[in-house]
């Protein structure tokens, strides 16, 4: 009797979903494939041996208290050769900050992540920038600029859609 009933049930064919659904899913797969927006699962993170090595080296240096600061002798040489920024600023009190420029030269979407303690997934965006500070001497008009690269990681919460 069960078999008979099962056969009756199997004769019922579910309605085919709309063609729009099929095309929507194909498009979603293609879009996600192009942007590489695959979810990064925490358990799939691989050990970064280079990072681990650097961290170990840093720990060793902290524990061993290795002093890389220049000796008195080299300090004197440096002072005479190239004065540090602080020394320069101290020597030039008339310098006034005139501007800060941030140039974004790389912005990479690293996909979805699940931060600990968060309610939902977030999109991780890594931005590489170059910041430049400028000072100007009020009297002579001479300019001083300091430029350095920075990296910023932003987590943007996303909905489950």
């Amino acid at each position, binding site marked *: 009797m*069960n078999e008979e*009933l099962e056969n*009756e049930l199997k004769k*019922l064919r*579910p309605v085919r*979903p709309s063609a729009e659904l099929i095309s929507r*899913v194909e498009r*979603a797969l293609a879009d996600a494939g192009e942007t590489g927006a695959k979810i990064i699962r925490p358990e799939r993170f691989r050990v970064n041996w280079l990072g681990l090595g650097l961290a170990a080296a840093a720990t060793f240096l902290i524990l061993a208290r290795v002093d890389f600061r220049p000796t008195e002798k080299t300090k004197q040489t440096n002072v005479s050769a190239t004065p540090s920024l602080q020394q320069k600023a101290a020597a030039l009190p008339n310098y006034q900050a005139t501007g800060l420029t941030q140039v974004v030269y790389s912005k990479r979407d690293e996909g979805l992540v699940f931060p600990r303690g968060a309610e939902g997934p977030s999109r991780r965006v890594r931005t590489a920038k170059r910041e430049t500070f400028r000072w100007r001497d009020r009297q002579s008009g001479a300019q001083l600029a300091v430029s350095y690269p920075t990296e910023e990681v932003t987590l943007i919460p996303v909905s*489950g859609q």
Partner: protein
Amino acid sequence: MENVATHEDWKVCFSELAPGLVLFARQWVRSPADAEDVVQDAFVRFWRRNLSIKNRALLHAAVRSAALDLIRRDNRRARREVEVFGEAERSVQPQFEQLDDSQRQLVAALDHLPRDQREVLVMKIWNELTFAEIAEALGVSQNTAASRYRYGLAALKKTFQPQ
């Protein structure tokens, strides 16, 4: 499990599984459009997680989870669902192609099954999952899945006599 299926494999897989998945999703949501949204959301999420294309238990668990999320997100919808399930413990009537009178009677009987039995029947009959896969998708033991299936069939038998 690493996903080694090609893009084409996933498309074929979806077109084959979509009718059963939409039918499965329609147990929780009222409209076919909502069910399709749920299936799309779950399938794309499943694909993004690099899971094996053959892991149908997890795919069904994802559809179930997406459907319940949808209900939770929309409070009004949730209240409506609770009212509907509370009244007669039944969901939207599953949609099947070309029903004759006897089949309509069978679908009506299926529609009146308790939800836990009906979802096992839908997974087993129209999605062709094994009891092991059903158990994994629902987070129950295989024995429980098999029992719900048997109880479901027994309940159907009481209300439906094949002609």
